[in-house]
């Protein structure tokens, strides 16, 4: 029997965990081809995880092991919808797994959101991590006061990077262009703003402690905003939630701490929702109107915020929004707009009309379940998808590709994208980045433009 040919679209954690699960099992012989629109693999591990969190990036060693499997190939710099279509994939593969992540921000839906100086936090993150698409972004770091809306891990990363000293950043693999811009930053005050109380905030205790240990910023917390309200107290007691109790304890310690006279102030604010971003009169962000919230318990026991009507204005000149993420629809693949994911049932892509599975198409990771969990959460998620792929393959429910040969798809990709990057190419780029980093005492110095990548690989300029 010829091997089951699988295309994995997206080289982030979900794509790699899916490839791993496929190549690890012994029920069906599988060949995996992984595609990514960027030349480098690892998705958000490279372009999302903060540069001062190198330990989290260590998971790439596990991904390299998957990539070393003889039945695995990587096609970097190849984009679905640009170089290849879903129909092309159907022509060459028995099964397709979409693992394209949640690539866009949810909007606040308030006036002033599009003023100059108001940005999605993910743009800033992609920029400081050297994502090629965001290489030329410009952020107004001459602002003295900056607000970050949201209290998830991304929001916390953004405030931390804004508060880091150049000396701290120099030891990381932050993109060179971002390091230069942040060296010149005039930011003095950074506000992290949460809709609910600290007990409901998504940031973890280690992340919170890290904020208290910044070399160049004092953390400011208002004691009354971190004292749990009665609704929260009851819930904490009932759930015996020790992690959250600890979180409140850390915040109280921070609130009691005297300012050490560090050059920057990081202010953590809670129970506030932005209602309007104010124009400074020249089309730029000049401030933020916020409404004070109170908490209530819903019927199902969840604690939510509702506005009280009490307003306040915060003068800021730069703003980052980090209130959630959404997947981006792929051309030719059913999308569930309300959830921001591919329409699926436990990883099987569904036809929107019949709500029955589409033969041979699957989803894994954030494009399947939405943006939740840590990197490792994608492992059980991908395992579920792969279990259904194998069940379907063993039952004969697969696509019937006209050209299933390994060489056929390679010819097609080479014709459509002559500059595709193989895993061997990537490992060479990786060595080069690490060498460049070693020379200056950094984990790596990233190549942030496609031209630089091609040049490093000894190929000519990119042809569009």
């Amino acid at each position, binding site marked *: 029997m010829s091997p089951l040919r699988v295309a994995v679209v997206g080289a982030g954690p979900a794509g790699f965990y899916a490839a791993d699960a496929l190549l690890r099992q012994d029920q069906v012989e599988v060949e995996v081809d992984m595609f990514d629109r960027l030349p480098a693999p690892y998705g958000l591990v490279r372009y999302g995880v903060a540069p001062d969190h190198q330990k989290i990036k260590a998971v790439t060693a596990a991904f390299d092991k998957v990539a070393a499997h003889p039945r695995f190939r990587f096609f970097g710099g190849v984009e679905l919808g640009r170089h290849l279509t879903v129909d092309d994939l159907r022509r060459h593969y028995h099964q397709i797994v979409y693992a394209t992540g949640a690539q866009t921000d949810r909007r606040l839906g308030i006036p002033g959101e599009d003023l100059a100086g108001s940005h999605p936090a993910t743009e800033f993150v992609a920029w400081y991590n050297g994502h090629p698409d965001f290489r030329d972004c410009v952020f107004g770091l001459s602002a003295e006061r900056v607000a970050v809306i949201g209290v998830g891990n991304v929001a916390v990363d953004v405030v931390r990077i804004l508060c880091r000293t150049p000396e701290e950043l120099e030891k990381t693999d932050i993109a060179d262009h971002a390091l230069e811009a942040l060296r010149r930053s005039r930011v003095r005050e950074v506000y992290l703003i949460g809709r609910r109380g600290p007990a409901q905030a998504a940031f973890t205790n280690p992340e919170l402690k890290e904020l208290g240990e910044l070399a160049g910023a004092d953390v400011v917390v208002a004691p009354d905003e971190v004292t749990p309200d009665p609704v929260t107290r009851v819930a904490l007691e009932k759930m015996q939630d020790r992690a959250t109790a600890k979180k409140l304890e850390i915040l109280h310690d921070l609130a009691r701490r005297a300012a050490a006279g560090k050059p920057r102030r990081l202010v953590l604010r809670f129970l506030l929702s932005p209602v309007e971003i104010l124009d400074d009169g020249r089309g730029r962000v000049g401030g933020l109107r916020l409404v004070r919230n109170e908490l209530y318990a819903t019927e199902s*026991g969840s604690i939510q915020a509702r506005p009280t009507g009490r307003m306040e204005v915060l003068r800021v000149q730069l703003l980052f929004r980090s209130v959630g993420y959404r997947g981006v629809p792929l051309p030719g693949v059913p999308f569930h707009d309300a959830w921001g994911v591919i329409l699926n049932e436990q990883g099987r892509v569904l036809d929107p009309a019949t709500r029955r599975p589409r033969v041979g198409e699957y989803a894994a990771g954030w494009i399947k379940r939405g943006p939740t969990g840590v990197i490792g959460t994608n492992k059980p998620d991908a395992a579920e998808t792969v279990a259904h792929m194998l069940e379907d393959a063993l039952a004969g429910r697969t696509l019937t590709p006209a050209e299933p040969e390994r060489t056929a798809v390679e010819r097609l990709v080479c014709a459509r994208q002559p500059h595709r990057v193989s895993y061997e190419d990537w490992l060479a780029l990786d060595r080069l980045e690490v060498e460049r980093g070693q020379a200056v005492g950094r984990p790596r110095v990233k190549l942030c433009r496609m031209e630089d990548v091609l040049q490093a690989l000894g190929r000519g300029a990119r042809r569009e």
Partner: protein
Amino acid sequence: MNIASVLASKGPTVVTIGPEQSVREALALLAAHNIGALVVTDDGRRPLGMLSERDIVRHLAQDAGVLDGAVRDIMTREVVVGSPQDDLGSVAQTMTERRIRHLPVMDRGRLVGIVSIGDVVKAQRDQFLGERDTLQTQLLERSA
């Protein structure tokens, strides 16, 4: 983590039944979809009640004739509903405490999904497995 992410990969189908339909029809639906409860609704949007396999068993034990009766007569009328923004942990707590096995999820007045206690347990398990895996990766790196 919130309820929206449990629903996102669960598929958009909520199996419902009308209040005037028979219990026999309800049994057939439960069997056909391999599920434990139906949302009772007459407009497909607003739940009037829930009908679980337990509701049926409880009545059937006393009166075999219940199968030909209407769903309305044996459904559970007190329905606790959730919203997509609800935190997974709080919902797990409420479902355990109040011994609810199925939670219809409403968004802006529309029924958008249903979460079973099994879905909640699975989501929590995957969350713990993922966190453990990520912590292990980081610890191994530290000792390397």
